[in-house]
C-alpha cells in the first residue's frame, strides 16, 4: 500500500505555510515567473517525464490516444504560436466550445502559454448561455467544431464585436478570414514557444458561475492558482509518481479544468479523459482497463452506479484503485458507505466552488472519514461558520450551530474578480472573510457539514443554475406572462430545475403548452439549464416591492412551513 502524502492532518495544518510550497515550482527559480502551463507541461517535458503519457484520451469508439508530456508541449506551443501570429495579446480571452477532445486541452494550455485568459464553455449549452458568456468575457477567439458553430454560434456573431477569430477543429480549409481551420494553422505553426515572463497575478482562467439575481458572473483566476492545484493534488487526491488518474468532470465546469486538466499535469501523473457521457458498464471497464489508481467523480455518477446493483469488485479487476473522491454536491452517508464497500477503497467527499479555484474542505486518506461530511479545511485554508446580518459578520464558535460557510481571504486560488462587476465582487466579502453563499455547520471534531444554499441558486447534477437566467429566457416565450424558477429536490441529481409559469390571458393550461415552453427553453438554454418540470400558477408570490419570493414557492413545493410572510404582497 502506498503511504499517503498527508500523514498527520493536524500537524500539517498547524505548520503550513503557502510560501514553502513554492519550492515545488521550477519557473520562478529559472526566471520565468509562475505560469500554469509551464508547471503543468514544459517542466515535465524538459525534465524526466518527457515520454510519460500526460493525457490518455478514450475516444467515443473506445480507441485510445496517448499524448506524452513532450507531445503536449509541442502541441500547446504550436497553439500559442498561432495565437501570437493572429495578434492575440496578453490578457485577451480565448474560449473553447468542445466536448472532451484533445483540441480542448491544447487550447487551454496553449492559451495559458501565450498569457491569454482561457474560458471553457460547456458544450451542451444552448445559444443563449453561450452568447451571455462570450459577450461578458469579450471573447477574442473561440475554438469549436463545425456542428456547434452552425447550430449555436453563427447567428450570434453580429452581436459579438470582440470576437475576431473562430477555429473549427474539423475543417481542412479556412472558411473565411474569420472562420479558420484549426489543423491548418496548427500545422503551419512552430512547435517551439518560449513562454513570456509570467507574474503570479497575471489572469489565467475565467469560469462562469450562476448568480441569483443577475446573469452569470465571470470568476477570474490568476496563474498563482496553481499553488492550490498542486497542493490539493498532493494532499487530497494523493498523487504519487506513475499514478493514473481519472477525473470524470467536463472542463466546461471548474472541476473539469482544475482537476481534469491542470492538477494532475502539475503533479506529473497520467490523466484519463473519456469523450463519452456516463455509461455504467463503460465506466467500470475504463477503471479496469486503464488501471486507474485515483478516481475523482460526482455523487450523480455514484448514484447511477448504485442502480446497477452490481458488485464491481467481483466483476471487474479494480485492484489498482486506491482512492475514490467525489465533489459537486454532498455525497450522503449511505452513498459513501455503499461506494466504500463496492470499491473496497476510501471514498472521500470534498467541497469547493468556482470562486475558490480548487478544493477547500476535504476528507483525507489519513484522517477518519465522517460519511456525509465535507471534511476539514485544506492546510492553508481557514474556514468558519458565521452569522451574517446588517451589522456585519460574527464567527460562530458553538459546534453544531448552522450558519454561513466563510473562508479567510488571501489564499492563492481565490478569484480575483467577477469580470466587469466590481460591486458584485465586493459584496462577497465582509472584512477578511469571503462569504461562500453556502450554509454549513461544524461538529465538535471539526468536520464541516453542508446544509444548503443561502440564496436561490440551484445545484443540479453538481453544477449551478441561476434562476434569473432561466426566468429571463422563459419570459421570451409568447405564452408566458411571468415565471419563477426553483430547485426541486430530486434523488439522482440533487435538485432539478422547476419553473412556475403564469400564462398570458387566453393561453390554455395543457400539456401541449407545457411541452412547447420546455422545448423553447431547451433550444435557448440547452438541457443542462432548461427546466425539466413546469407548473402553471395563477399568480406568483411577491414581496410588496414586487420581488418574486422563490423561497416561498420552494417551501410550498416541499410542504414546509412558509416562514416569515410579513413582506408578502397581499393577494
Amino acid at each position: 500500500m502506498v503511504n499517503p502524502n498527508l500523514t498527520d492532518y493536524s500537524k500539517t495544518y498547524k505548520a503550513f505555510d503557502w510560501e514553502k510550497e513554492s519550492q515545488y515550482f521550477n519557473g520562478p527559480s529559472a526566471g520565468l515567473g509562475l505560469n500554469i502551463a509551464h508547471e503543468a507541461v514544459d517542466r515535465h517535458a524538459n525534465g524526466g517525464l518527457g515520454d510519460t503519457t500526460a493525457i490518455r484520451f478514450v475516444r467515443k469508439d473506445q480507441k485510445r490516444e496517448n499524448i506524452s508530456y513532450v507531445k503536449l508541449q509541442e502541441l500547446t506551443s504550436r497553439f500559442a504560436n498561432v495565437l501570437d501570429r493572429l495578434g492575440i495579446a496578453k490578457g485577451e480571452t480565448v474560449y473553447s466550445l468542445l466536448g472532451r477532445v484533445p483540441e480542448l486541452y491544447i487550447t487551454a494550455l496553449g492559451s495559458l502559454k501565450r498569457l491569454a485568459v482561457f474560458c471553457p464553455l460547456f458544450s451542451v449549452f444552448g445559444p443563449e448561455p453561450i452568447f451571455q458568456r462570450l459577450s461578458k468575457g469579450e471573447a477574442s477567439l473561440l475554438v469549436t467544431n463545425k456542428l456547434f458553430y452552425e447550430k449555436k454560434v453563427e447567428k450570434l456573431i453580429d452581436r459579438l464585436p470582440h470576437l475576431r477569430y473562430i477555429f473549427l477543429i474539423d475543417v481542412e480549409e479556412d472558411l473565411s478570414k474569420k472562420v479558420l481551420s484549426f489543423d491548418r494553422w496548427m500545422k503551419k505553426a512552430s512547435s517551439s514557444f518560449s513562454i513570456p515572463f509570467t507574474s503570479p497575478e497575471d489572469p489565467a482562467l475565467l469560469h462562469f458561475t450562476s448568480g441569483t439575481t443577475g446573469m452569470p458572473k465571470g470568476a477570474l483566476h490568476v496563474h498563482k492558482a496553481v499553488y492550490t492545484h498542486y497542493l490539493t493534488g498532493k494532499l487530497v487526491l494523493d498523487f504519487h509518481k506513475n499514478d493514473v488518474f481519472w477525473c470524470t468532470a467536463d472542463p466546461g465546469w471548474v472541476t473539469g479544468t482544475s482537476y481534469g486538466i491542470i492538477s494532475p499535469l502539475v503533479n506529473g501523473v497520467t490523466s484519463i479523459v473519456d469523450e463519452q457521457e456516463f455509461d455504467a458498464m463503460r465506466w467500470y471497464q475504463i477503471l479496469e482497463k486503464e488501471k486507474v489508481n485515483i478516481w475523482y467523480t460526482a455523487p450523480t455518477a455514484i448514484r447511477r452506479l448504485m442502480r446497477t446493483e452490481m458488485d464491481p469488485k467481483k466483476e471487474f479487476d479494480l485492484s489498482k484503485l486506491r482512492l475514490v473522491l467525489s465533489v459537486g454536491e454532498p455525497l450522503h452517508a449511505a452513498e459513501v458507505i455503499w461506494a466504500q464497500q463496492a470499491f473496497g477503497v476510501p471514498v472521500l467527499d470534498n467541497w469547493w466552488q468556482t470562486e475558490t479555484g480548487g478544493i477547500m474542505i476535504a476528507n483525507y486518506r489519513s484522517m477518519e472519514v465522517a460519511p456525509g461530511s465535507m471534511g476539514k479545511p485544506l492546510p492553508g485554508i481557514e474556514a468558519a461558520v458565521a452569522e451574517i446580518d446588517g451589522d456585519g459578520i460574527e464567527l460562530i464558535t458553538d459546534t453544531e450551530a448552522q450558519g454561513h460557510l466563510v473562508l479567510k481571504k488571501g489564499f492563492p486560488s481565490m478569484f480575483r474578480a467577477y469580470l466587469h462587476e466590481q460591486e458584485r465582487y465586493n459584496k462577497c466579502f465582509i472584512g477578511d472573510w469571503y462569504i461562500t453563499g453556502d450554509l454549513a455547520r461544524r461538529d465538535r471534531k471539526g468536520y464541516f457539514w453542508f446544509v444548503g444554499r443561502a440564496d436561490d441558486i440551484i445545484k443540479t447534477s453538481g453544477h449551478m443554475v441561476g434562476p434569473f437566467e432561466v426566468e429571463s429566457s422563459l419570459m421570451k416565450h409568447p405564452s408566458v406572462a411571468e415565471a419563477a424558477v426553483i430547485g426541486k429536490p430530486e434523488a439522482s441529481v440533487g435538485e432539478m430545475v422547476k419553473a412556475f409559469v403564469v400564462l398570458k390571458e387566453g393561453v390554455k393550461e395543457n400539456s401541449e403548452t407545457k411541452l412547447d415552453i420546455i422545448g423553447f427553453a431547451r433550444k435557448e438554454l440547452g438541457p443542462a439549464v432548461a427546466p425539466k418540470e413546469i407548473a402553471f400558477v395563477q399568480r406568483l408570490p411577491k414581496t410588496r416591492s414586487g420581488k418574486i419570493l422563490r423561497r416561498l414557492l420552494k417551501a410550498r413545493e416541499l410542504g414546509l412551513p412558509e416562514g416569515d410572510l410579513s413582506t408578502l404582497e397581499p393577494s
Partner: protein
Amino acid sequence: MKEAEILNIVYGLLKQVAPETDPSSLTLDENIRESLNIDSYDALQFIVALSEKLGVDIPEKDYGQTGNLKNLLIYLEKRLH
C-alpha cells in the same frame, strides 16, 4: 409487438423529454442523446418511461446498449421475447 409500434412509442417518449425535436427524423445509427440534445437526467427519464410503457425491465447496466435506434430495437426485441 411490431417494430413500427415500438418505434412510435420510442418517438413519443423522446418527444416528451425533447419536445423541440423531431425524433422520427433520427437515422438508425445516430446517437440519440447527442442528436436530440438529451442530458443524462433526461436519458434516464426516457429509459424508465420506456421500460414502464413496454412492461420490460431495462436494468441500468444495459443502458449502454440503447444508444441508437438500431441497438435499442435489437435490445428491446430480445427483452420482449
